[in-house]
């Protein structure tokens, strides 16, 4: 499965661009701030229906314009032929094979895995980084999760609004409590299953990279640091119910929902139990980040029977040493890859790249020269 061409109109610093791609390696090079990452962002947007860099979709509209447009053409057995997205200040439109659809319908049609310099935040940053990571890839792998998650976030929004009312109708609150528990437990259960089935791939990748026997442990952390790993949906519901009782007064006081999957975390530790986030060395943290992503690629391949598109933003230096390089070389063999770098020469040491059908694109101020 691969992206054959991309069309951008008034997207970031691209005024009007049409570009065709190699089914294997595509390299965007050029000076800083010319628009390399913008291209990866556009490709990811066609897959995810939203930007991986910002939560405000209309930031991608070119300054001074009111709308922007993206179109991708794909080839593959399970892939749509075209995905189109139009973004305005007030609304967004999505089309799949020329049919108007909702964002949820395009999400996951074309899986992508993104490597970016911010990835280290997955390990070092706050829990929201890890939740977003889980949700993003879960939605790509499990079509049902999009609706489960959507329903939950709807309940959460409704409940938060109710809590903000001057006088909270307690019978009504009970109703939203029941919904929060029901839908929240579903979200958590999906995440647990995803973690459980992805861990083996992550650990395998980690051992390939570091050649160490040491394995990482992954625990899903819920309300008040409870470890929820391996729990049944029924048990999760009970926990959420109890948690709701615990926070009842503070919720009314603070007027916001204080429990639920929107606050949970994924804790990554060494076998000793020490947390990687706190006690890991830079090198260990970087290895783990890479392993997470690599594991994910294999998990996607296993579940969907096709590789995702690979987007590597300024991370080639991560693949310098022999083991990591072997890993990426293997992948590039079978996956369509988009790489950004400030210098074409960066790729000289990656001898393998010349073995593949590689296209170089020089990017300058939102336009390209084919090299």
């Amino acid at each position, binding site marked *: 499965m691969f992206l054959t061409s991309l069309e951008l109109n008034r997207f970031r610093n691209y005024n009007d661009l049409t570009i065709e791609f190699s089914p294997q390696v595509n390299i965007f090079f050029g000076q800083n701030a010319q628009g390399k990452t913008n291209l990866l962002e556009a490709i990811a947007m066609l897959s995810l229906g939203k930007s991986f860099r910002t939560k405000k979709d209309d930031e991608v509209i070119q300054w001074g314009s009111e709308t922007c447009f993206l179109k991708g053409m794909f080839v593959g057995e399970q892939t749509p032929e075209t995905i189109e997205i139009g973004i305005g200040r007030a609304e967004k439109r999505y089309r799949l094979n020329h049919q108007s659809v909702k964002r949820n319908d395009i999400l996951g049609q074309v899986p992508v895995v993104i490597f970016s310099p911010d990835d280290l935040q997955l390990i070092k940053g706050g829990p929201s980084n890890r939740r977003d990571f889980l949700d993003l890839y879960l939605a790509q792998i499990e079509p049902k999760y999009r*609706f489960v998650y*959507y329903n939950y976030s709807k309940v959460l929004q409704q409940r938060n609004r109710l809590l903000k*009312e001057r006088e909270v109708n307690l*019978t*009504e609150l009970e*109703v*939203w409590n029941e*919904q929060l528990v029901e839908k929240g437990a579903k979200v958590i259960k999906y995440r647990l299953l995803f973690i459980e089935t992805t861990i083996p791939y992550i650990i395998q990748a980690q051992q390939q990279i570091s050649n160490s026997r040491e394995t990482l442990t992954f625990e899903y952390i819920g309300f008040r640091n409870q470890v929820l790993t391996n729990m049944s949906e029924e048990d999760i519901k009970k926990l959420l119910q109890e948690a709701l009782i615990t926070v009842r007064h503070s919720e009314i006081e603070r007027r916001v929902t204080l429990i639920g999957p929107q606050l949970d975390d994924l804790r990554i530790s060494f076998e000793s139990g020490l947390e990687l986030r706190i006690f890991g060395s830079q090198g260990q943290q970087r290895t783990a980040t890479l392993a997470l992503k690599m594991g994910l690629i294999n998990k996607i391949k296993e579940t969907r029977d096709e590789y995702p598109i690979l987007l590597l933003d300024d991370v080639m230096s991560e693949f310098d040493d022999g083991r990591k390089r072997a890993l990426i070389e293997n992948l590039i063999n079978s996956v369509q890859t988009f790489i950004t770098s400030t210098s074409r020469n960066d790729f000289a040491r990656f001898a393998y790249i010349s073995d593949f059908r590689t296209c170089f694109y020089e990017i300058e101020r939102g336009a390209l020269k084919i090299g």
Partner: protein
Amino acid sequence: MSRLIHELSKLPGIGPKTAQRLAFYILGQPQEEISKLAESLLEAKLKITFCSECGHLTESSPCGICSRRNRDQSLLCIVEESKDVIAMEKTKVYKGLYHVLGGAISPLDGVGPEDLRIKELLVRLASNTFTEIIIATNPNIEGEATALYLNKIIKPLELKITRLARGLPVGGDLEYADEVTLGKAFEGRTEI
């Protein structure tokens, strides 16, 4: 323009964005189309009222369904909107009476239980001899919340309460379910 948007955004389920879109659309129409719209709004307001019994839209109250003697007086089906009555009637499966709530619980839209025709419902339940109450709110988050709420307040009356079967498209509206699906959901209703 901003007045039109403001007026439109007062409508239920219409946020500022949708109101803006509607306003632009309306203004893009030819003059006579807009006149027709304005006239039909007024005419509807003058001619059409809500049935005093069930809350369904009607030209004379009580409505055709409430006043017809051949309807099964022991069944009451609770729906969100008049359009749901119309959807249910199309299935021709149901022969009982209706109660139209006038919406669903949705804090985001400023709709709480007190904004729905729930008091009227309780009055009807007390003065009639229904044997089964069928909750047919939409299969989305707000519809579910409304069903749960109704269940809580009807439960003490010890009436049989049922909910439409789950075969309906989740997240959808009754209105959009085709007749066969809705008919099946109706026949497969379960007690809650």
